[in-house]
């Protein structure tokens, strides 16, 4: 099973890196992401890049955005390029195909974020040279990496779920864009619609709770959402439906 997942992941990873004009174009795209998020933005933010909560939250959204840009291709791309039926005619199991595809986009989004992170630290340290060494506290670093992985997984599972039934990559991208907007803005909208008294009560409860506990709860909720979406994608993955769609 692991070998089969790796087979699909490896193939999709190579395809991802070759998309849009061959290996050189793929390398340039990856380098551009690392350049912007590892050098340009940290250089402008300075020490805040490591300390400010808003910038810490950035590391959780960056993998989600990167994954959202490529995941639509996972099944809709295979369907559009007429390779899906041949893939389904291999002895690879349903789970191996699904997890391999999820793994490839997670590796892409999270991998670029993880690569950008030490470069960003190096950039901040060079910009603030002369002072003490600037590093993330170990629990924060662990939290960033785990949250990044879980948000990448969220984007990947939601994207695969949409891509499974989309006829074209464009359709998958459009649906995914709407889903992402809903995911980002519905909680904000919901918060604004709450009665002021309830909102104040929640805010005071949150302020009184240990931030580490809050972060832990948020990560657990994210992990549960990932598992739910993965289970939904697995339930929707049916060879006959994929062919007839």
């Amino acid at each position, binding site marked *: 099973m692991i070998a089969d997942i790796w087979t699909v992941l*490896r*193939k999709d990873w190579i*395809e991802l890196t*070759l998309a849009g004009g061959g290996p050189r174009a793929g390398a340039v795209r990856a380098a551009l992401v690392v350049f912007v998020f590892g050098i340009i933005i940290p250089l402008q933010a300075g020490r805040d890049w490591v300390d400010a909560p808003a910038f810490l939250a950035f590391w959780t959204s960056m993998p989600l955005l990167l994954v959202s840009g490529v995941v639509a291709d996972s099944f809709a791309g295979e369907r559009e390029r*007429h*390779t899906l039926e*041949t893939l389904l*005619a*291999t*002895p690879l199991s349903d789970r191996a195909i699904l997890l391999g595809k999820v793994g490839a986009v997670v590796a892409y989004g999270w991998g670029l974020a993880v690569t950008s992170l030490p470069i960003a630290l190096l950039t901040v340290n060079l910009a603030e040279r002369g002072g003490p060494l600037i590093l993330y506290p170990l629990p924060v670093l662990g939290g960033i990496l785990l949250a990044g992985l879980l948000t990448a997984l969220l984007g990947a599972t939601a994207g695969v779920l949409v891509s499974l039934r989309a006829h074209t990559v464009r359709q998958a991208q459009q649906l995914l864009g709407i889903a992402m907007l809903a995911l980002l803005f519905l909680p904000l909208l919901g918060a604004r619609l709450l009665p002021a008294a309830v909102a104040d009560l929640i805010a005071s409860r949150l302020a009184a709770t240990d931030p580490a506990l809050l972060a832990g709860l948020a990560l657990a909720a994210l992990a549960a959402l990932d598992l739910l979406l993965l289970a939904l994608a697995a339930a929707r993955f049916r060879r006959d439906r994929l062919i007839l769609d």
Partner: protein
Amino acid sequence: MTDLAIRTTELTRAFGSVLALDRVSLEVPKGIIFGFLGPNGAGKTTTIRLLLGLLEPTAGRAEVLGLDTRTHAQEVRRRTGALLEHPGLYERLSAEANLDFHARARRLPAPERRARIRELLDRLGLWERRREPVGRWSRGMRQKLAVARALLHRPPLVFLDEPTAGLDPVAAAALRDDLASLAAHEGTTVFLTTHNLAEAEKLCARIAVIRRGRVVAVGRPEELRARRRGTEVLVTGRGFTGEVLERLRTRPEVRRAELDDGRLSLELRDDANAAPLVALLVHAGVEVEEVHRASGSLEDAILALMEET
């Protein structure tokens, strides 16, 4: 141990109210190229999808290499190769990377994987271009690569769904030669669907004809041709009047009677005897010079089968 590569019993598949495959019973012996002929939409691709376990039958059953396609679909796919409606190649990847992916999916060990990829690409004349993205290749080269992919793990049975469709005549002929040579060399059973009747005649040891989801004939090419040979009669002579033609058309054994370039062309039902008809012509005053039973091609035979049903 069965000598059959494929056995279907009353295999049926419906899509809503449309019956794509209607009680198809087939037996495909091992080690031959089996042609599955029919026009577009006849049910050829659906049959392959059912045999690969990609679709489930609505009724009936299919056994591939002794395995029930409903309960052992993954094992069926492991032990067979397939070139489906589209070549199914990853165009951004090189030929080598395409084959490597499929060899890994079949769990071929690394040394065998490398050796087999080289062997197949060499035999098909593609080795020198193995590192090029296949998106830059001609359609003929891509079809060859897709055939190589289907044979990669030395499967005892290969499904080829219209492998020469869309190729120019030269590329199609070259691919046909490669197919014949590969099948002979590998000892593989080939289930070949095509609507190219000449191709089937050249390659196939046995043929089944499908129309509107039903198998209308099965046999060796010469057996199918023989059906036609007994029904086509050409008569050369003088005095074929309209009245004579009408009298011929009223005969129960005559399916068609037409004048074609001064010759009388008769199509008879089954293996009807032409002698009484010749007597009728002579009696009606026709000067008969020559009577010839046409040695119809497989194409004629199959087209006739299609018209009959």
